[in-house]
């Protein structure tokens, strides 16, 4: 979707400001939002691409006016609602009794346990596919990206649509986010690093030597 998340090439946001000795989290709620999102993700109800798409669905004006972990919180709340795990307004009830015991998780689900965290993170393999799918392109091929504007999730950024590039690396077979993120299955296929000259993307005033590499899948590309 042509959302506010697709920022490459926009103007007017000002300088990049690097904070010295920045903490990993600036507020406790950021840390909890991060961990809640991760732990809920490990329940396996949605994939990483649906997770990204949920954040992209934040209205553009709100997306640009809020902080990173507010995007995450919006996405998590949306996924929990969409998958029927939290009903509207359900979280807005009085705080739980500290002595209360948790309910058993719904059938088929297992909450991530503290002792499993290290292994779960180490073994995390969200999108690599084992299927033996033949590549449509080989390194060195000239390609043209499709000019698509889907309403759903896509990993082809606006600035790289309808552009000519060269296949620089073949990353092997991966889940296709433009399908998986929209609940349309894994559609495993080759993903490549495609090299574009800065001039192809930004016009003749761009520096002649500079390039941008974008990771794209077979279904994003046509022979050029």
């Amino acid at each position: 979707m042509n959302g506010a998340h697709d920022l490459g090439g926009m103007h007017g946001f000002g300088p990049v400001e690097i904070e010295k000795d920045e903490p990993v989290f600036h507020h406790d709620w950021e840390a909890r939002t991060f961990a809640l999102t991760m732990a809920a993700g490990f329940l396996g109800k949605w994939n990483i691409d649906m997770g990204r798409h949920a954040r992209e669905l934040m209205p553009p004006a709100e997306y640009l006016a809020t902080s990173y972990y507010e995007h995450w919180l919006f996405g998590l709340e949306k996924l929990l609602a969409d998958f029927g795990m939290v009903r509207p307004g359900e979280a807005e009830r009085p705080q739980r009794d500290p002595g209360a015991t948790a309910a058993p998780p719904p059938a088929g689900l297992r909450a991530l346990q503290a002792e499993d965290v290290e292994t779960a993170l180490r073994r995390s393999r969200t999108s690599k596919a084992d299927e033996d799918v033949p590549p449509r392109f080989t390194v060195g091929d000239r390609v043209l990206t499709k000019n698509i504007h889907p309403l759903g999730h896509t990993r082809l950024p606006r600035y790289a649509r309808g552009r000519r590039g060269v296949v620089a690396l073949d990353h092997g077979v991966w889940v296709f986010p433009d399908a998986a993120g929209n609940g349309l299955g894994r559609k495993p296929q080759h993903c490549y690093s495609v090299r574009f000259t800065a001039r192809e993307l930004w016009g003749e005033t761009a520096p002649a030597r500079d390039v941008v590499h974008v990771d794209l899948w077979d279904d994003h590309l046509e022979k050029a």
Partner: protein
Amino acid sequence: MSHEHEHHHHHHDDDDVQEHRAHDAPLTDVELRVRALESLLVDKGLVDPKALDALIDTYETKVGPRNGARVVAHAWVDPDYKRRLLEDGTAAVAEFGFVGRQSEKLVVVENTPAVHNVVVCTLCSCYPWAVLGLPPVWYKSAPYRARAVIDPRGVLQELGVEVPQTAEVRVWDSTAEIRYMVLPERPPGTEKLGEEELAALVTRDAMIGVATVAAPAGGTRR
């Protein structure tokens, strides 16, 4: 969304005393939302609060840019390791035990006098967690995501990195699950430094490509 603390007014005879309630300030809207959500998910048995603590602890104390710095320093002193790192980054960093989440496949790109690599994720915040930890705010922010692809030289210049016109700036937009890390140039005058001393020089920003590694003060005399 307002993050301002509320002011409480107490009337003492004729005086208005305004009090900042710094320590017991009411929670902001977003804090309340997160607390309520955690409480609800715990009640439903979907989340274990101790697992949340463990996730946070992992990225606050265990997995961070010191991982990547060790890899870079090792590549600087061991040409055979450097070759393996550039050929298959995933396998080479796994030799250090750095594997997993947000680093399923790692590609390491080498900065040289002829090529300056810079890593960005214009669509979200993809970042090689296993070697660099969680990304800093600036990496996830609109200015960097917007400008890194259209004006990388301008961004680099503002951050103090001057890439000569004779060199190529090569930007890597992390639009898939492949993660990128920059192998920065080893600074001159560090020939006699050991691997640990070298690792201490390597910064997170150099491994993203928006900084160079500086020689230590007096390093040439070591």
